[in-house]
């Protein structure tokens, strides 16, 4: 069965999630991956979107982190101060998702600026929830396509901490979470080396060579000793994912239904 790289990424991310875990979900691929997991092997996955929706079970993928769909299908909703203090900071989140414009070999991320902070060549949206997701989630999954422009030797700005300079510097800062345990790219999966914590290629996408994979990184990517190849998406995984995306696209295409008549009252 044919599948795209993006589909393989989504499936690979979904497979990282274990049933019953509590996930702090981001928009886009993480949201697709979490809902794919929930609709396949992890029906009791608990999804928390940053907007405070707890135990959300959306039938379509949201376009924003605070879509009405997320509120309407949530077990309940809490305020932003509460979701960050009582859920994330309190250590009640097992898995957090992160993405960024740049990542370095220790999984540190930049989503703030390209260039100088005060006068950037490109101003990016900023850190948002990332610094504390990176610190407090039991583990984080980073989702980013591999290219030398994004997988860089040195970040322009560190928006959120991965393993810092490696070798347990992270634990020394007293962070509860175990950091970026898995990085899902469009060529394969990286995991930290047990001792140095430098990210190394742990598994390749089917049909990708390690040379092709390494070309996506601006630093000399190390290969794990037991370098593996991921199983291709199953027919069931693809069917569920495509159905979810079809459903979502159809819903998002529906014409807006703004009750303009209320302006006349």
């Amino acid at each position: 069965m044919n599948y795209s790289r993006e589909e393989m990424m989504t499936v690979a991310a979904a497979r990282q999630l274990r049933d019953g875990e509590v996930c702090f979900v981001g928009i886009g691929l993480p949201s697709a991956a979490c809902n794919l997991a929930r609709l396949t092997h992890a029906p009791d996955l608990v999804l928390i979107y940053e907007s405070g929706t707890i135990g959300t079970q959306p039938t379509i993928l949201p376009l924003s982190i605070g879509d009405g769909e997320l509120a309407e299908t949530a077990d309940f909703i809490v305020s932003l101060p509460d979701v960050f203090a009582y859920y994330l900071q309190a250590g009640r989140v097992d898995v957090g998702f992160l993405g960024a414009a740049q990542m370095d070999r220790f999984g540190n991320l930049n989503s703030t600026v390209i260039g100088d902070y005060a006068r950037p060549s490109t101003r990016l949206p900023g850190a948002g929830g990332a610094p504390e997701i990176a610190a407090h989630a039991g583990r984080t999954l980073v989702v980013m396509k591999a290219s030398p422009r994004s997988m860089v030797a040195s970040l322009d700005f560190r928006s959120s901490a991965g393993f810092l300079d490696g070798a347990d510097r992270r634990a020394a800062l007293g962070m509860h979470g175990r950091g970026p345990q898995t990085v899902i790219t469009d060529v394969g999966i990286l995991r930290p080396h047990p001792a140095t914590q430098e990210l190394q290629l742990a598994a390749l996408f089917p049909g990708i060579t390690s040379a092709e994979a390494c070309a996506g990184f601006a630093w000399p990517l190390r290969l794990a000793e037991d370098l593996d190849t991921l199983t291709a998406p199953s027919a069931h995984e693809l069917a569920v994912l495509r159905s979810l995306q079809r459903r979502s696209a159809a819903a998002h295409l529906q014409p807006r239904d703004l009750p303009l008549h209320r302006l006349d009252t």
Partner: protein
Amino acid sequence: MDDLATNCWMSLPEAMRRFVHDGDCVALEGFTHLIPFAAGQELIRQGRCDLHLVRMTPDLIYDQMIGMGCARRLSFSWGGNPGVGSLHRLRDAIEHDWPHPLELDEHSHAGMAAAYTAGASGLPFGLLRGYQGCDLQQHNSRIASVQCPYTGERLACVPALRPDVTILHAQCADALGNVSLSGITGAQREAAMAAKRVVVTVEQRVAQLTPAMNQIVLPHWIIDAVVLCPLGAWPSYALGHYARDNAFYLNWDAIARDRESFLHWMQRYVLDCNDHAEMLRRLFASGAAELTS
């Protein structure tokens, strides 16, 4: 009771004129949901300037206010067009000082939430485990730390946010001006309780507030003005009333990418309209469809 009711209900132009002044620290809060667009656009119409804008997620409303020159300073934690990409007017202000320079007071979401909570609680600073191993505090001297007197560990601190005025949009209010918000309520309660003045636009005036999902209520005696403003959150949404206009969010990318097209749009749909209702009628008249969807 009738006097009180008369006093707090007023028109949007009056509320903005009376309670928002040039140079003020202003928070228009709402996390994706219930963003007070109509109020922000009225501030643009009134030409308010030199504002210190505060919002966790600047969103399109601050893109518009910044692009129209209302802002001197921005406290924020994530400045993108959700699910779409950049806020081009925000970027242009930071990257090229257009229309003029913008000071940044940048935080993480958790830091902003702690700062609002501290403001609402009458504390001078908010406490969090945050910013560990990040570069933000090197560029924002307002992010400090304090030592735990019990464990000796260092925790991050942010100064309390205390806006001169917080502006919210809500589903409903009663005659006295008690306001009810439900659904995703972000940091709105904290932003309101932290503020010196509070103005709320609402979808509906109701006889009685009824329990709702994740409802928060703000008492009339912390609120300075309540404005009836149906669809006042568009293109954001009001749960139970209308959905988020995702198509407009997508479309904004093209409108705002270019200074000319941005200024043209603002002139036609904000400055040339008397109010939010006129803007919506003009936008959704047949001729304008291509601009918006």
